[in-house]
């Protein structure tokens, strides 16, 4: 079975995003970028399916400017077989991404598409669900366990209050939660080998998707700062302050 893994280039998760002084957006110049952590988990799951003999081919795909080829090479070094770069300089919304991915799904017909549940930049948590809707496939979101059995996939989902298991008919779309697996590191020999793996570049404009914006970014601001707190000396003082000053306990 063929597995498609969409990945996104985002700010490194350890970096604190800074808002531009003109409030037009977040400042990403000279900021360390990386594969979105949830996408890394998606790549790992696909590679594990291949190692288990369930998957035959793993295709990584990324949408964006040329720089995202760096993240595609990382996915190849982690074990993906080939990469597809959909090139565009446009700022895209989840719906646009899902429509472009639907075109790739049409071309490659993967039995399984594994995406991260959300990207840590826009924090939308939409693309996987939208792709499932557009390709009329079942969806297994926030997966912490994925078991492929014949023409079905059992997905254990992290939901409020516990874990829910659903059985989906293949082909299906799965989005990863943090506890699905622990992604591996790319070894140096694999990084070298990844340079020779195929990476196709497709112009986004050639796919016939209307990429006109539906959401306008009016402004981006710093969140309200919390006023500086105090350090108390003892538990007694703490309880006293919570009762008399903050009045949050009685």
């Amino acid at each position, binding site marked *: 079975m063929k597995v498609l893994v969409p990945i996104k280039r985002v*700010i490194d998760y350890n970096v*604190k*995003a800074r808002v531009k002084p003109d409030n037009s957006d*977040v400042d990403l110049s000279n900021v360390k970028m990386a594969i979105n952590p949830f996408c890394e988990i998606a790549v790992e799951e696909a590679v594990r399916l291949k190692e288990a003999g369930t998957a035959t081919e793993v295709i990584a795909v990324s949408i964006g400017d040329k720089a995202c080829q760096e993240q595609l090479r990382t996915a190849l070094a982690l074990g993906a077989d080939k990469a597809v770069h959909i090139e565009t300089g446009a700022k895209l919304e*989840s*719906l646009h991404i*899902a429509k472009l991915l639907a075109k790739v799904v049409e071309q490659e017909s993967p039995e399984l598409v594994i995406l991260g*549940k*959300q990207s840590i*930049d*826009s*924090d*939308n948590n*939409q693309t*996987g*669900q*939208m792709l*499932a*809707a557009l390709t009329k496939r*079942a*969806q297994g*979101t*926030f997966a912490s366990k994925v078991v492929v059995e014949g023409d079905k996939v*059992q997905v254990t989902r992290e*939901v*409020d*209050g*516990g*874990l*829910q*298991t*659903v*059985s*989906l*008919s293949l082909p*299906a779309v799965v989005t990863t939660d*943090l*506890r699905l697996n622990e992604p591996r590191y790319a070894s140096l020999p694999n990084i070298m080998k990844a340079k020779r793996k195929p990476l196709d570049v497709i112009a986004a404009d050639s796919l016939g998707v209307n990429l006109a914006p*539906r*959401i*306008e*970014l*009016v*402004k*981006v601001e*710093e*969140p309200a700062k*919390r*006023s500086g*707190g*105090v*350090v*108390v000396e*003892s*538990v*007694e003082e703490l*309880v006293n302050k*919570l009762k008399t000053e*903050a009045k*949050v306990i009685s």
Partner: protein
Amino acid sequence: MSVLVIAEHENGVLKPETAKVVAAATKIASDITVLIAGHNIAEAANHSAQIAGVQKVVAVDDASFEHQLAENTSELVVELASDFSHILFSASTTGKNIAPRVAALLDKSQISEIIDVIDADTFKRPIYAGNAIATVKSLDSQKVITVRASAFDAVETQAACDIEDRSQSIASQVSEFVSIEQTESERPELTAAPVVISGGRGMQNGENFALLNGIADKLGAAIGASRAAVDAGFVPNDMQVGQTGKIVAPNLYIAVGISGAIQHLAGMKDSKVIVAINRDPEAPIFQVADYGLVADLFDALPELEQAL
């Protein structure tokens, strides 16, 4: 303009998030309809009808909606959608699962986790783990939105409005519910609790989380955890507070043995009062804490329990 709010419920009990989503809806328009889909939901439908501002409740009680699977529930919402300019879901795991599917089926961009309504087209939402607040304007004719419940105060109750029972069955052809494993808890729900006490990696193991029980009992608090504590297997993952877990905004949040990584802060920094108990005076949590206590939690917790 008219708003459709998708009710949040579990096992036939209406969840408090619904009244908070209605609060967001009232800032958009006064014509508000609640859709509740599930099985054996009569009581939850009645409760929905008593939320102030709700004009009408549409109740779809059918076994096919028992588990609110995204595949069939999204079809139901799309069928009703044409009468509404705004469709609002709670940004819970259920809402996040279904809303984008609805948006794509309607060919609309979705706006996630709004924390404020500026006008009927313009909303505020946090991005980059809450390190920036974006103001976004929807250019779509119809808006599909998820609402961060912790950012809105629940509205009052009213004399019940009309409930329209709609009989409909949509079985999903491609997905099937298998099982649910619910985490047992007698404490208030994390996202709704007025007080939350959370433990992190500093708790050292799962047994030590029992140290939080006595304090939680005395304060009527829910117990949460950082991702480090969940990943280390100390506690189940539905206790996780943070960017990828639950977003809480209680009156009082007590962080014990939590360093305060940005991903954790994203889940709790809108709490009214934050208390940090940590051995490391340099821990980033102290930068957001209103009251910080630099102490070994194994000494401080029993003392705190006694002092309350």
